[in-house]
């Protein structure tokens, strides 16, 4: 069973992402910030994390670094999904161990094409 952890402080975005991912047959879990997400990952590593960047408490980049440093934390694919859409942010994300990068707004086609490139579909 493929699982996706959706990390975003917007309930609306989480809901839209969940609808798309459930259509793609992922079992979804949600987190509102990086801290919640990290706790969820330490309980059980998901197949993939869909990760917002700007969030309260712990942001996406802090989460990514903590995840990759934790035991078993290199396993999940991490796909950023953020309004940050400049090359500097993209490069920073990829240099810190992200696997793909989505610039909001997104739709089903974008998620599907990125996930299939990562061999997740």
């Amino acid at each position, binding site marked *: 069973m493929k699982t996706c952890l959706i990390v975003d402080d917007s309930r609306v975005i989480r809901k839209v992402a969940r609808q798309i991912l459930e259509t793609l047959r992922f079992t979804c879990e949600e987190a509102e910030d990086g801290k919640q997400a990290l706790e969820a990952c330490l309980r059980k590593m998901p197949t993939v994390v869909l990760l917002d960047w700007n969030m309260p408490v712990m942001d996406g980049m802090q989460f990514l670094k903590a995840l990759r440093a934790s035991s078993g934390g290199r396993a999940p694919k991490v796909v950023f999904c953020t309004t940050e*859409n*400049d*090359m500097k942010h*993209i*490069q920073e994300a*990829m240099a810190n161990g992200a696997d*793909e*990068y*989505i*610039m909001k707004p*997104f*739709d*089903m*086609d*974008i998620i599907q*094409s*990125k996930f*299939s*490139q990562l061999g997740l579909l």
Partner: protein
Amino acid sequence: MKQEDYDLFATLLKQRSGLVLGRDKVYLLESRLTPVIRKHGLKSLEELAQSIRSKRDEPLLRDVTDAMTTNESFFFRDSKPFDQFKDVLLPELLRTRAPKKYFRIWSAAASSGQEAYSLAMICAENAAQLEGWRVDIVGTDLSSEIVERARQGLYSQFEVQRGLPISYLMKYFSQVNNDRWQINDSIRRMVTFKEGNLLMDFGPVGVFDIIYCRNVLIYFDQPTKTRVLDALSRVIAPDGVLFLGGAETVLGLSDKFKPLEGQRGMYVLKDRPNSGMLPAKEKEAPRASAATTTSPFVVNAASQQAVR
């Protein structure tokens, strides 16, 4: 068209692709969805709407969306034809075109250029092997407007995320402004875009080693398909390869091309030489090996024999 049918299509397209179907674009439904209606054994737009309403059949919904959004082409669309280029054809081109260090690819119906640029990026990824080679990629489309767009290589944020891996965006694109990305000169230099109509005389286009003509024939009637395939056969190298779309075929339409066994979507000339790219294997050999590796029935039969 009935209001409720229009609403159905508009909502469906909005949901699945973000495409906004203005009332003034209703004529597009008719022209774009005719191949879909035919493919699914339906007779009219009303019947199609009825079928969508009652079944919500995923392949049908997908076909409808695809047909309505073909101008919004994807990079590496369908991925397989590009994997085949990289894994199957590029090694063969390197082997057979070594004397001239030169090959040519045609992206027919190039739309805004994504297919041609995708091929150019694959070549760039294999730059070490192609050192000293000349690669010509030609893209043609009916519409002068879209040809101009393709030439500029400017894409919206949406477009650069459809099919394009982020690593390629980082390597081969520059951000022009908040929402626009432009493909780099190194890639643009490999591709030439021209206006061209597949139904007209191609003119002095030269000979192509590979032709991509995907999702074009579906819009034509049978005699026109045959005419276009005949015309393509005259500008393809004797050992060249033609790519058609997933829903297209040459069977019953062309006495020039035949499917290439074991390579979905790839077609070769019927009277091709046996010395060029992808030489035909001995008659029975490929079929036998394919059977033992891919058919569960044959494998089962074999293992049953082993048990006995």
